[in-house]
Every structure is written in C-alpha cells, then in structure tokens.
C-alpha cells in the first residue's frame, strides 16, 4: 500500500528555494581562511618544446608564494581513464603540467600561488615561457595526425550486402567541434587538515566517488583519507566534474603547502581548457534494395580528440559506432572509427556523446536513401523501423561495457504521434505553398534511440529523522532535479511526505559508494535503488509500528507521513520512528533505451544565410515520467544546446593552432531569440522491463537529433536533398552552399 500517487506529478522542485534567493553554494562561493589562489599559466603555443620557464619575475611580486612547473608535480602520474579505457590509449594521457612538450594552446604549463586572485593573475602574466614551436596537426583526417587507436564494430556480411544492393548511397559528413559550456566555469578548492591527515576538495561534481578514489591514488593516499564535496553545480552536460589537471593540482598544492588552495576558472580558460567534443568526419555508405530497405551500413569515421586522451578515453567514438543503427533494421553493419590526435583542446563527452554525431549521420543517410529511391522522407523511415514485436532487440554491438539490447519500444507509434503533434501534413502543404511564392521554407524529421541508465550499480540509504526523512545517495546533481525525483519516488514508496524528504548527494563522507550523474543514469539507477530501499524501510517501519501499536503490520499503512491503522483508530507519525534506516543497491548490466522523434521547420534567408527555426516538435518516450515537467525541461534545454551545435557553436582555430573561439562573442550560444517554444509530447508507451517503474532517462533526448532534424529541414527549404553535409550550418556555409 502506498499513499496518493506522487510519481507522475509535476511537483515543485526541492532544489529551487536556495537557488532563487541567492543562497546557492557554487564553487566560487566557497572560501577558507588563509586560502591561496591558484592561477594556471597556459601554453600560448599549439605545439612546441619547452626550452625554459623563468619564474623569477612573478616570485618577486608581494603576495606571491610559489610558482610550480612540471618538476614540482613530476611525481604525480597522468590522469587515468574512467570509461572505455583502452590500454592502447594510455600513452596519450595528460599530465598535470606539460612535461617538456606542449600540445595545445591552453595546456597548463605552470601554477602560480598567491594571496589574491588579482595578484595571481598579474604574476601569471610575468612567467616567461621559452617554447620552440613545432609543426601542428589540425585535422583528424590529415594523414600526419597521430592515430591513437581504431575502433571496430559490426556484424553480418556487409560486403555481400553491398555486392547485391540495388543502390548504394554514400555521404561525406562532418560535425563541428563544440561542447557543453556550462554557465558556471569549473572550480576546485582543496583543504588539508594536518591533525586528521584529511584532504578534502570542494567543487566536485558528476562523479565524486570515482574522483575521490582516483585523485587519492594519484597522490599516493588511501581513499579513506580524502573526501570530495559537491555544492551547487552550475550545469554539467558531460564536461563538468571529470578529473582535470587543475583538480589534482589544487589537492597536491593543499597537501604540500598545508593551506587551503582555491582555483576558479575564467571563461577564456574554460573555452580552451575544459573538454571539447563532437568533432567527427564520417564517410558513410548504405546498401539498399529497390524499396528503399536498408541491407547494410558501412561507416568509416575520424574522431578529432584534440591533444590528449582524457578520462573518457574512447567513449565518444565508441558510442558513435555502437548507436549509429538507431531505430532501424540494419541487417549488416560495419563501423571503423579512427581516433586521431590533433593540436587542439582535448575532448570528452558532451550530452548525447557520439549520438548527436551518429544520429546526424544516420538520418542524413535516410534522407539520401529517400531521394535516391524516390520516397518520401517519412515513408523511407517507416519502412525501415524496427517493429515493436522485435523487442527486446539485440543490436549485436557492445558499448560502455554493456551489450546493446533495446529493452522496449514502439517506434512506429511514436512516429505517428510526432507527425500529429507537428501537424506534419499541414506543415508540408504550407511550406510547399510558401516555396511556390519564392520563400525558402521547409520541414525535416529525425528519429533516434537514446541510451540511459548505465549501471553497474547505485546504492541508496534512507533514514527516518525526527523532522522527516533523509535519503543519501552517491549520486550527483548537475541541475537536473535529482532531489525532486528521488524525493518523489521515496515519498510514494515509503509513504513519507514529499516536502519533508531531504536528498543528500555528492558527499563521499556520507556514503561508501556511488557512481554519479552521467549517461542519463540518475533517475533510472538511483530511482530504482531508492524504490528498493524505501520498500525495505516501509516494511521495517510497519513492523516496528505494529509492535508499538500492538497490532500486525498487515493492518497498518503509511500515508502522507502518518502510520495509520487500516481499520481506523490509532495512528502515529512516521517521524516517531526516527533512527530507523534501510539501504539497498540496484545492480544492472544493461542500459535502458528511450527513443524519440524531432520535427523542425525552418526558413532560410538567402540574403544573409541565416536560418530561423519556425516550429519545433519533440515526441519522446521515457517509459515512466516521475515528474513530467522536469522531463519536458530536459527536452527543451537539450533542444537549445542542439540548436547551438546545428547552427552557431563552433571552436575554430587558425592554421597555427591558435584558438579563435575564446569569448562568448566568438563562441555563439543560442539566446531566447534563437530558441523556439517547442511542442513537447512525453509518452509512456514503452516502460522499461528492467526496473519496477519502467523508468528510462530523459537527459539526452532533447539534444540527440537536433542537428539531423535541422539539416533535413534546410535541405527541404532549399529543395536540394543532401545539401547540408556539415554542422554547424553557419551563414557563411549556407551562403556558399547557395552559390553552388
């Protein structure tokens, strides 16, 4: 028995009150008495030999305490891999400070420690770097770019399928370099307590437990002598919260100087030092029969990982290869991904890593097949969709240590719902009429399968407190609403009052293990672990209450924070059982696979090359929406980032490797002007069979196919199938396209 339905309601967020009143605790808000400020001196050269570093001038400034170079951190090993850590990639890991050679503009070369941020910045500018430049590699498809490894995935007889094909469609496609760019820059503050031999770092995010264990190991310490603390985190998107050189540096310095050390990144640093993502070039081919049915897909791609392999190692290209088949029947498949190193900022994941890219590739391919076979863009997709009766569907590919098996889905049903949501037929008629009048208006569609709920485990402990209930998880908040979702699940299963449930996350001293917030895993993994622990605690509470109330547990229920007798009479508040607790762990070896359909309509301005998104519709099946408004919020927010990657955002470099996108005036993120009000439809037609509520993740479905849908709409507006081959479609590129 549970109290009134709480799951499925758009309750107000538990997170909001401190954030709207200025009481948030973001990294820069944290200070300790006697702290020193760390400033990073970064390489101004994209590739070169360090001949000398002169630190005498900065050390002469009052208030400057020390300057470190590689020699001071030489004892610390390079940063290890967290995911998809192929052994072959290890030689390319990044050290804390550059060791003899610099490989991208922005690479940390020296560290200045001073009393004050202004003094530290003055001093950093006085560090004299003598760097002899070397040749640079600026493109992953350049033969002289280092090939760190090659990823190979596939199944079926691809060559035979191509030999017997009615037609072969081939495309050369590129996705631009862009990334998450959270509004809060990175920051880390370390303290060392000599008396307790305890090292602590504030400003943690995303994966505090793994980072704690790893930083401790890198510094030669037992993990138990170190703790990480997550405050408020101003956006995650994959890039925030991974271990970067600066995180390790503040910890090493706090240990060495026995002082609190604070580092806050500035925006220019962020744009050249935090993980980049997305940049890939794909040479893809499809073999099809007469009816436009796919017989095989063969894809060769180049992944531009920048100068080093960071914590994600091969994750992004691996996901691109594993998720490319999407919602379609692909009888034979081959992907060969070349991981190449260039003299650019190193890469990691960005929301829908590998899928923003491979959905663009797959959906461009579907449009090309439609054009080749004389089919409508919707019809070609419908013909190739996996049937709901094919679920669960074993894709015969592996990624992130799991076998890719679509757990549930009715793709055709969602396609119908999406077309209705977007008024597809009317849209077609209207854009056609407008084109007849000389306007460049068009509509496009993209389908995708997402992945979410990555294991292997999540652990939750729930305790009844004198004033409510406390849920402790090793998970993390990046602004997505974990406190709200977990509290809703706990309230429903335990019978506690939603507004009395505190959710503690991101504190390594509060729970032994935790996986963290990535791969749209929190609601699925932490949600199911919460359900399990809450059910356990409810049973315990009912037994204990039955003893106190001299009845049997079966005669009792918990609703709205009260333990009540089913046949009326006595009741007691749940909080009278303060101290009672339960914990449980949910383990899962398979991910769960939500899916969606996006429909975009655009207007192209032939004079300026500008693209205006007129309408945008998103239909997304999330299995079970714990808080529908939060799911919609994830979709709408993802859409804005997807638009950025489709039309505006791009890290550009000159031929010497100098980054050109180093301010918000150069790196253009969408504003309220550019992002339309989307039509959103969240469905629950295909709950996951892999957890009790049928949960699937919501974090990446808003961004995944945006580049693909907009490209398709631009093609339609121009009435030139296959015109868009490169993202972002900037005005310059579109003008060039119109001239061709």
């Amino acid at each position, binding site marked *: 028995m549970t109290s009134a339905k709480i799951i499925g309601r758009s309750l107000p967020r538990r*997170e909001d009150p401190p954030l709207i009143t200025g009481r948030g605790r973001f990294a820069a808000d944290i200070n300790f008495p006697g702290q020193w400020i760390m400033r990073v001196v970064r390489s101004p050269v994209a590739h070169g030999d360090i001949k000398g570093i002169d630190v005498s001038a900065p050390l002469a400034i009052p208030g400057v305490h020390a300057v470190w170079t590689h020699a001071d951190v030489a004892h610390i090993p390079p940063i290890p891999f967290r995911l998809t850590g192929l052994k072959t990639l290890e030689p390319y890991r990044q050290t804390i400070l550059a060791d003899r050679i610099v490989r991208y503009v922005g690479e940390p070369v020296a560290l200045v420690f001073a009393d004050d941020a202004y003094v530290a910045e003055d001093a950093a500018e006085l560090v004299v770097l003598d760097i002899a430049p070397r040749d640079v590699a600026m493109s992953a498809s350049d033969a002289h770019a280092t090939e760190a490894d090659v990823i190979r995935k596939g199944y079926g007889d691809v060559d035979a399928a191509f030999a017997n094909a009615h037609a072969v469609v081939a495309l050369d496609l590129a996705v631009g370099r862009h990334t998450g*760019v*959270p*509004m809060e820059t990175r920051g880390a503050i370390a303290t060392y307590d000599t008396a307790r031999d305890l090292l602590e770092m504030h400003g943690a995010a995303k994966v505090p437990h793994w980072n704690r264990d790893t930083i401790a190991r890198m510094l030669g310490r037992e993990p138990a002598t170190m703790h990480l603390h997550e405050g408020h985190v101003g956006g995650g998107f994959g890039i925030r919260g991974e271990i970067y050189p600066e995180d390790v540096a503040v910890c090493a310095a706090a240990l060495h100087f026995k002082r609190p050390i604070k580092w806050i990144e500035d925006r220019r640093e962020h744009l050249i030092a935090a993980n980049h993502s997305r940049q890939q070039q794909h040479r893809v081919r499809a073999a099809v029969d007469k009816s436009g049915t796919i017989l095989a897909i063969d894809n060769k791609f180049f992944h531009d990982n920048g100068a080093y392999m960071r914590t994600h190692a091969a994750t992004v290209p691996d996901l691109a290869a594993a998720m490319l088949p999407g919602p379609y029947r692909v009888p034979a498949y081959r992907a060969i991904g070349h991981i190449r190193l260039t003299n650019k900022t190193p890469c990691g994941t960005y929301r829908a890593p590998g899928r923003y890219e491979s959905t663009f590739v797959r959906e461009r391919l579907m449009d090309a097949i439609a054009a080749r076979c004389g089919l409508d863009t919707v019809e070609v997709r419908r013909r190739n969709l996996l049937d709901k009766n094919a679920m669960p569907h074993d894709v015969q590919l592996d990624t992130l240590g799991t076998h890719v098996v679509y757990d549930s889905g009715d793709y055709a049903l969602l396609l119908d719902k999406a077309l209705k949501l977007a008024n597809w037929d009317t849209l077609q008629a209207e854009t056609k009429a407008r084109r007849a009048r000389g306007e460049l208006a068009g509509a496009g569609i993209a389908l995708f399968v997402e992945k979410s709920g990555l294991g292997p485990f999540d652990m939750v402990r729930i305790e009844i407190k004198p004033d409510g209930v406390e849920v402790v998880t090793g998970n993390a908040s990046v602004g997505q609403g974990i406190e709200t979702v977990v509290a809703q699940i706990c309230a429903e299963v335990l019978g506690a009052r939603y507004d009395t449930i505190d959710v503690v996350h991101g504190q390594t001293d509060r729970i032994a293990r935790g996986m963290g917030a990535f791969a749209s895993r929190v609601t699925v993994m932490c949600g199911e672990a919460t359900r399990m622990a809450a059910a356990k605690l409810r049973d315990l509470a009912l037994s204990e209450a039955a003893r106190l109330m001299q009845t049997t547990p079966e005669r009792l229920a918990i609703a709205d924070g009260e333990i009540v007798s089913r046949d009326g009479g006595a009741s007691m508040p749940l909080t009278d059982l303060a101290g009672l607790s339960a914990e449980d762990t949910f383990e899962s070896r398979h991910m769960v696979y939500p899916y969606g359909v996006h429909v975009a309509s655009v207007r192209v301005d032939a004079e300026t090359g500008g693209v205006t998104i007129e309408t945008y519709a998103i239909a997304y099946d999330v299995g079970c929406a714990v808080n529908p408004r939060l799911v919609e919020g994830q979709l*709408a927010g993802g859409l804005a980032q997807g638009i950025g990657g489709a039309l505006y955002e791009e890290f550009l470099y000159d031929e010497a490797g100098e980054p050109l996108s180093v301010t918000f005036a150069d790196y253009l993120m969408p504003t309220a002007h550019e992002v339309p009000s989307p039509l959103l439809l969240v469905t629950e037609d295909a709950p996951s069979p892999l957890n009790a509520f049928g949960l699937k993740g919501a974090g990446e479905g808003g961004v995944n196919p945006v580049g693909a849908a907009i490209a398709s709409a631009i093609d339609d507006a121009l009435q030139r199938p296959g015109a868009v081959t490169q993202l972002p479609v900037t005005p310059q590129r579109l003008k060039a396209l119109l001239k061709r």
Partner: protein
Amino acid sequence: MSEKTPITLTINGRKHAIAVEPRRTLADAIREDCGQTGTHIGCEHGVCGACTIIVDGAPVRSCLMFAVQADGKAIRTVEGLASGDRLHPMQQAFMDHHGLQCGFCTPGFLMLAIGALEQEPDISDADLVDVLSSNLCRCTGYQNIVKAVRAAAKEMRK
C-alpha cells in the same frame, strides 16, 4: 595598482564600507568584499549576464563596472528580493514555471527581468524577448524563463 580607495557600497539598503583597488570589478567587490555571493560571475566580459544587478534602478552587468563607480549608488541584488519568507513575484514565477535548472544564471535573469519591468511595466512580448536575450542560460532553453517573466509581469502590475 594596489593603492586602495575607500568606498561605500549600499547593497539592498545596507552599507558596506570597503577599500578597493581602482581596477576591482563591482562583481568581485559585491561577492568577495561584501560577502553577497548570490550574484554570479559567468564570463567577466559582459556577454552572459549572470552578474546582472540593479544599480540606481537600471539593470547592469556588474562585471563591466568598477566597484569605485558604484560608490554611493543604490545597489540591488538577488539577496534583497524576498521580504522574509515572502518571495518576490518574479522568484515565485521562476519556481512555478520551472524557469531554472542548475540555477547559476537565475539571479542574473531575475535582476534583469525585474529591472526591465520596473522601467517598463507594460513591455511588449517582443521587447521582453529582446531584453531576455541579453542573458545566457544553458539549461532551460529559455521558454520557461519567458513564461515566468510574463506571469510575474502580470503580478507586478497588480
């Protein structure tokens, strides 16, 4: 460069007597010298608007103003919006319309919207989107922010 000038910053009606270098930004002075960390710094070059506050009735980027320029002026920040437990209609509207996720840009948006509406209570929808497009948010996709501000505008006109 390190000569300090004594100034008084009046933040939400409270006076803070501090001494700052001429180059110190108003954002840094409010946060570091006056301890009001609700005002956030997102870019330090005047594009993102996370540091937006209201100075003498107008929304300004506090990263683009020197602290000494604000000496004696009336400064309002996010910390001054609620009176006790009673939220400002704009704060309430952001909660009601899910106008925030991570919350980092939120203080800047609140101050921008309140400043704009106080100056022009009957602002048109198009002008409002113009104003709101001067700040960046990376989580929400903006539409819930626009909805929240429209709802709050109605409340504020009452």
